[in-house]
Each structure stands twice: as structure tokens, then as C-alpha cells.
């Protein structure tokens, strides 16, 4: 790939200006596993850390639910409102070959051709749940450059929980009669999303039933941010019905998070979970336990508000590896 001919700070400045070439190069850099590039990437991410940042919104749902079509409609509607849009679409990788077909750009259609919409596809790689390790850093880059940033993943139950840590608002795209309430509950998806969008309301009766069941289910439990219950909307991404209402609901959710102070809490907690899960991925749950329990980890993250999550991951990782070496040295 092209050598980074700008310093990480210079690149960060251009990313913040929304320079698309710079955004593309920054995304390449944070994906790069070579050590020299990793160190540049951390400098870049640190420089991107101070606000303002764009909104981060997750879009998830079962295959065929219409996520790409919805994203296409959302991106166009947001562009019409004068907001710049960044999209990170995650597609599964083959476990056998490591290869992947990233077809979302194609599935989305018109909006990916809009010069005001930045689109990057990402292979899920080794992560079964649908998010690769590089997703968090990629979102950090996009959120520094664009007003609204989406991450799209295939929902398989567990991944809703992990995508929720990366975003401020999580939208679940439900298919009419994709499953009754029991199916939603079994998949464990009721507790994470902030907004449910029952797509394809051309299947009207079914869509209405699905929406009713979702609302009933949400009465039973509560949303994960305590007092606020998730909103259930319906519409048709294909025909552009219900898109403005969805954007309004996302904005309203964001405003409420801001007012209640929940936004800061969510961002903070998200950073902790990102650091924790990255370390668990590198060193296993057992290794993570050696680094201390969650509380000290959270304190460490809170004590470094200016450092990027990736920086914290590497700092703690270095500490862990040093301890490991020390322990080995002691034994020998």
C-alpha cells in the first residue's frame, strides 16, 4: 500500500477535514499489522481522540432483513439533510480460506456512488460474531471525519451485544414474521437495540403483528440503558417509507443520551469493553484475569481519557507481556 507520506498528526488533521483520500489511508493504516505501521496507527488514533466526533450507529439484523437497502435509504436521506456519512460494512470471511466476498457496496446501490458517502467494506476475518478487531479503530477514524457513521453487521444474536459496545445507537432491522417473539427472545436480541425497524411493511398484517409482539416483549424487559425503552418503528426501506421517522428516532435517542449524561457513560463503558475484549482475544480469558479484574481495568481506561482505545490495548498488552517475561525469568 502507499507509504504514508504524511506524519500521523498531519494525516489526522486531514481526516478531521473529511479528506477522503486521507480517510482511506488512515483506514489502511489501522488495519496494518506490521509493527512500524501499528505505532503510526496509534499516533494517528490518539490524535483523533479529542472530540468532536460523529454519531456512531449500528445496523444489525438477520441476513435478508433488508439492512443494506435500509442503509442506502438512510444515507440518501441524511445526505439530503446535509450530513456527511461514513459506512463500515462487515461481511463474513471464509474460515477455511480467509477469503471474503464483500458485496455490500453492490447491495447498497445508489448511495455508495454519492461522493458525500464514504463506504468501506471489512471482512469479519477470524471473528465469528461478525466484528473484526480492526472494526473499532476503523469506526474511530470514520467518526473523526463524518457527521454520521454506520457500522453494519449480520445479526446472529451474540453480535448485537458486541456491536452495542461500539456505537451510541443500535438499530435492529426486523423482518415481518422472521420469528415470533419467542425467537427474538431466544436470540437474546431484545435487550440491546435502541430502535427496532420492522422492514418491508408491504407485508402489512405480518409487519404489524411483528411490531406488536416486539413492543409486548419490550414491556417485559427494559432496554440496557436503564429507564429508556427501545422504540419500535415500521416502514419499507425499498419504498423509502418510514426513513425520516427512523432518523428522527435516532436523533431523539441521541439527544436523550446527551441530556441524561448516558452518552458519556456509554462511550466510557464502550472503551472499557473494547479494551477488555481485545485483550481477552489476544491473551485469553485466563490472561485477562492476570491483568486484574474489571474494576482496575476500568480505572486504568478512565485515567487515560486522551489515549485512543487501541493505545490502551497496546499499553496493557505490553505490560502483560513484560509480566509474562518477568515471570518466565523468575522461573528459570
Amino acid at each position, binding site marked *: 500500500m*502507499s507509504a504514508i507520506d504524511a506524519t500521523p498528526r498531519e494525516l489526522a488533521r486531514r481526516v478531521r477535514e473529511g479528506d477522503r*483520500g486521507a480517510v482511506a489511508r488512515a483506514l489502511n493504516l489501522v488495519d496494518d499489522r506490521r509493527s512500524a505501521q501499528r505505532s503510526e496507527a496509534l499516533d494517528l488514533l490518539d490524535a483523533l481522540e479529542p472530540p468532536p466526533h460523529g454519531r456512531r450507529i449500528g445496523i444489525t439484523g438477520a441476513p435478508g432483513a433488508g439492512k443494506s437497502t435500509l442503509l442506502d435509504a438512510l444515507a440518501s436521506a441524511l445526505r439530503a439533510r446535509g450530513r456527511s456519512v461514513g459506512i463500515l460494512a462487515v461481511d463474513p470471511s471464509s474460515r477455511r480460506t480467509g477469503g471474503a*466476498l464483500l458485496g455490500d457496496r453492490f447491495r447498497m446501490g445508489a448511495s455508495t456512488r454519492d*461522493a458525500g458517502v464514504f463506504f468501506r467494506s471489512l471482512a469479519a476475518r477470524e471473528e465469528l460474531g461478525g466484528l473484526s478487531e480492526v472494526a473499532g479503530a476503523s469506526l474511530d477514524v470514520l467518526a473523526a471525519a463524518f457527521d454520521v457513521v454506520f457500522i453494519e453487521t449480520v445479526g446472529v444474536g451474540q453480535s448485537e451485544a458486541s456491536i452495542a459496545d461500539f456505537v451510541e445507537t443500535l438499530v435492529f432491522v426486523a423482518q415481518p414474521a422472521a420469528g415470533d417473539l419467542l425467537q427474538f427472545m431466544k436470540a437474546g436480541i431484545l435487550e440491546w437495540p435502541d430502535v427496532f425497524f420492522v422492514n418491508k411493511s408491504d407485508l402489512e398484517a405480518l409487519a404489524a403483528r411483528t411490531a406488536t409482539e416486539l413492543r409486548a416483549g419490550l414491556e417485559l424487559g427494559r432496554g440496557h440503558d436503564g429507564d429508556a425503552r427501545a422504540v419500535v418503528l415500521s416502514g419499507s426501506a425499498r419504498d423509502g417509507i418510514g426513513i425520516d421517522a427512523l432518523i428522527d428516532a435516532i436523533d431523539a435517542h441521541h439527544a436523550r443520551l446527551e441530556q441524561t449524561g448516558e452518552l458519556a457513560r456509554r462511550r466510557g463503558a464502550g472503551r472499557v469493553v473494547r479494551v477488555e475484549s481485545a485483550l481477552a482475544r489476544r491473551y485469553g480469558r485466563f490472561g485477562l484475569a492476570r491483568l486484574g479484574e474489571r474494576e482496575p481495568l476500568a480505572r486504568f481506561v478512565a485515567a487515560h481519557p486522551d489515549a485512543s482505545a487501541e493505545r490502551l490495548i497496546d499499553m496493557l498488552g505490553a505490560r502483560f507481556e513484560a509480566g509474562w517475561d518477568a515471570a518466565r525469568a523468575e522461573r528459570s
Partner: protein
Amino acid sequence: MSARSDVRTAASSPPSGAPPASPPASAPSRDEPWLFRTYSGHSSARASNALYRSNLAKGQTGLSVAFDLPTQTGYDSDHPLARGEVGKVGVPICHIDDMAALFDGIPLEQMNTSMTINATAAWLLALYVATAERQGGDPRKLRGTTQNDIIKEYLSRGTFVFPPEASMRLTSEIVGYTVDRVPSWNPINICSYHLQEAGATPVQEIAFSMANAISLLDHLRNSGRFSEGSLAKVFGRISFFLNAGIRFVEEMCKCRAMTALWEELGRERYGITDAKMLRLRYGVQVNSLGLTEAQPENNIVRIALEALGVTLSRRARARSLQLPAWNEALGLPRPWDQQLSLRTQQILAFETDLLEYEDLFDGSRVVERRTRELIVAAREELDRILAMGGAVAAVENAYMKQKLVESHTARLRAIESGAMTVVGVNAYPESVESPLLQPGSSSILKVDESAERAQIESLRAFRSRRNETDVRAALRGLEDAIQAGQNVMPPSIAAAKAGVTTGEWTDVLRRVFGEYRAPTGVGAASAGGASDVDARVRGRVDALSQRLGRRLKLLVGKPGLDGHSNGAEQIAVKARDAGMEVVYDGIRLTPEEIVQSARDEGVHVVGLSILSGSHGVLVRDVVERMRGAGLVDIPVVVGGIIPPEDAESLLAAGVRRVYTPKDFDLARIMDEIVDVVAEANRAA
């Protein structure tokens, strides 16, 4: 041999000259031959008209019009997406004066014309009817075919414009209009041809095209537009367009199987009893998929054998036949190449005794058994599709597309492994130099690069001489009629006469119906058995990815209007299997969009696929724009029907590798993509 200039009487008797005009008195009576056609058209209406006249003079008995891609997808020649495509794969027709020039001196009342036109079929038919009227002809006497089969466009050919529902509406309105007003016209030609080109097996060809016909007929029946009696007429007007491959015995059985299934369908599903209406009528263009670039003269023999497959059995004989040219895999055929294909048909019809006999295979146990097997397997596949909700549903859920991609992948694997013999390619590749391919002499037709400019100039002149008030009124009338649910044909014919252009007509429909992007089928196509070659290439991909710091990422792009996505899809699937991350954007992209994808996606290499012959303009445009965007270290490779001279000039322009149809070994292409990326990243 002296050529006949009389277009009409050349139809069914052998040409004057050596053979007698009618058989000797003692000879047995002969059947009428099928219609002889050649799929042709290029550069401009005037140039194509000259070609048609000379073909008719040589004994061709019908016309088969090839339109260029802008015309097929509803863009005027001066639209940005048309750049580099005007007059390339066919003739550009922007308005009624173009159409009139195309048929200048050819009385349409007496011609039988097949038009390969789908999304914009209603418009081209409107221009055809308006032109016939301008010639003083009677539309009721027009004979010919609009291809008008949109489902296969979604599956393989890619010149769709509107969503399936709107497309079905347009198709059924053309049927409704012609059954009453142009009663000898074949309003739709259901194509299994393109399915075979996309890799379909005979069973898939039968089942998918029958499913397609059922979805159309059900739609027509349920539209309430047709009484029971007229539904029989509609059924009788539906024709098919088949393919025929080199396994010509099986192909003949396929034709017999389809004939039987069609009759069964008419009787059982639609209650039709008139035997004449139940007869399957079909035209054929024989296989291009199996034509080889290596030792291309072998194709002469392949084409003749394939023609035999669809004419041998009298009960399932093609009504019209068009043969490709032997050098099609090299580029556009010249008039001489097309003449050879026509002579092949004439020898088969007039020299051999083929047309003197009853059906040769009635009572043959072998043929009967193979036919039966095909019917049983096709019925099973057809039932599966019907259970899914029919052909439209099986397009939308990508089932049919996936099956085609799988079959095509299996076919390529069989050629790679040698399980399928292709003489001159994976068997007996040694050859003395062919006198037909003299180095230096161009063995293909070059479209004059100035044709596009001339066409744009003539289009602009046309626009400036027409009456704008009439045009605006006609466009408003068209839009109102469509919104009100009225038949699209009458206002389209009025628009044709008022001087509306192809782009303007299609823009109205695009506005009302929206545009459609079909599923690619590659995402879900199963990888099948990966060979050892894959494992070796995968190892190289892994090693290079390590060195690059992230996984090797490839963008597969199809610039321009060419919708033949089979090749691009095979490359995408293979690259995924080789361990690459592959971004596939689909068809009909401008060079700007491809460069934007390459940059935003952070790919290491770009692969472009172009089969329309527009590679010169489009590839150079992509390469220059990439340079302009500072993406100098991302190499570009190109695949397509690219003559050697063009390949050299593309390489000189900075393209790293050029692949043509002779490069069937996909594993080697993957290997070279790794090489190309490694070269471009030496410093890394």
C-alpha cells in the same frame, strides 16, 4: 455465384447459380428451411443498413438486429455512461431517423426482423412500427420478434433497467398490444440461450426458461386483460430462443424435451387445446461459450455440429437460426466471417438431404430415453422454483443466479482438470501456424473510433431540428398514460413520431418505475471442491498478506454498460477461494465510481472486466483517473475480448496484465494477481 438482390424471394429457395432453383422432379419433396439470420449491427444506422442489404443479397432470409449497449439500457449516445460504448456491440438507435436509416430500402412489411432488445423493447418496437408507417406499410403485416425477456437479463445478460414488477408490466403490455394490433409479431422470445452462456446445464436451461414462461403467462392470465380465447392466442405467440452446445445429441433431446413440456404446460396449466397454438416455436443462436480463442478455425466445425443439433429432428426443429462467427472470441467478426456462417446454414439446408425426411428419431429408444430423463429432471427443478414462488421470486432470492454461477464454476473446473475435453485448449494444443491468422493482418472488424463522435453530432442535429413543443407534449402524454395504468405502446408510438429520443423515453420510465439492481449470486455461491492449486495459491496469498500487513484486497469492477457479468463473477469467487478479500461492485459503473471504490476500499489491485469491446476508452480512463487520485501503486489488470494489438496498447498505458477468453485457467490468473501485487509493493 451471383447474388440476388430481391429480398423477398431469396427466402425459401436456394439462390440462383450452380444449384437448381427448385429440386428436380424426381427428388422427394423438401421441407421449407428455417429462417437464416445473422446477429449483426455496428457503428451507425447507415453502416448497419449497408451490412443488412449485403447479407440479404447473399441469401440471408431474416434480419437480427444487434443494438449497442446505450440503446439497450436506454441512454442517448451523448450520455456520460455511453462513453466508449456507442456503436460497439451493435447499432446505436436514438430516434426515428436512426431507425428509418437502419431499414432504408428494406420494406418492413416484407421483412422478418428479430430485435435483441429487452428493457427498452417497447420503445424500439414503437420506433419500428412508426418507421413501417413512415414507409407506407401496414403494422398489421409486420413480422418479427422483440426479445423482451427481462428475467434472463437479471440472471445473466445484465441490460435490465427497471424493477421486476415494472418489467413484467411492460412485457405484458407489449404482448397485449401486439396480439391485437401487430398479430404476426412475436412479442416475447423467452431465452434459454443466455442461461447456457451463463453456464446452465440442459436441465437448468429447460426448467428456468419454463419457469420464466410460467411467470409471464400467469401474470397475463391474472391481469384480466385476456379472455380465455385470447389467452390461447397469446400462448401461441410466445416463442423461445435456445442455445445449442457441442454435445449435439443431448441438445437435440433437449429441444424435443422442451417441445413436449411446452405442450403439456399449455394443456394442463392453461387449458389450451388448439394443437397449432401448443407447438413450441423457437429460434436458435448456437453456443459462443464453447468457442475458443486458441486454434479458432476449429470453431467452424463446432458451429456446424451445433447447427445440426437443432435442425436434425424434424419435430423439434428450429424456426430460425443464427450462427456465430468462428473468430468471435477474438473480436467483432468481419463480413466475410459472417458470410461463412450463413454458408454453413445454406449447405445444411440446400445441399444435404436433411429436409427430405420425416423425423429421424421417432421410435429411437436411445433418444426417447434421454429426452425422458431431461423432462423428469427439468420438471423436478421447475417444481422447486414454483414452490419458491416462481421465476421472479427465484431471481429476487438469487436462487437461479446461484445455481448458474455454480454450474459455470463446475464447468471451468472440469476444463481445468481435463475432465472436459476442449480440443486445442486442454487437449492437442500443438498447432502449426494458421494461415487465417496472419500476424499483422487484422483478422477482426475494427469499429471506427470516429463512429461515436459522428453519432453524437447527428443526434444533436436531430434534436435541433425537431419540434420541442411536440416532444414535451409526447413525453407528458407518455408519463400520464403510464401513471394512469394505460398501455405504454400507443403513447410510445406517438412519442417516436414526435421525435422523442431513446434516453428521454427511458428517463420517463426510470422516473416512474425506479431503477433496479439485481443480486449477483456470487456471495452465496458455494465454493465447491477446492483443488490443490487453490491451496498453493492460498499459501502465496497468505504470505503476501503478511508482508503487506493486511489481507490482499481485490476490487473487481465492470466499467461501462456491458452487463455480461459471468466472467467477473467467476474471478470474484475464485479470488475469494484463493483467500483474497474481494470487493465486487456489480455492473454499469463509471470510471469515476471505480476509482472512488478503489480508494475508499483500500484495495491492493483492481481487476476490470469488459466484454463490449470498449476497453480502449474505458480502461485508459480508469488508469488515468487512478493516477490523478494518487493511486499510482495500485496495479490494474484487465479481462475481456481484447485483440492482441489492443492488449499491447493497454499494457503500454500502464495496465499490468491482460486476459482474454483463452485464459481459462483461473488459478494461473490468481497466481499472477499475486505476482502483480508483489511487484507493486516491492518496497513493502
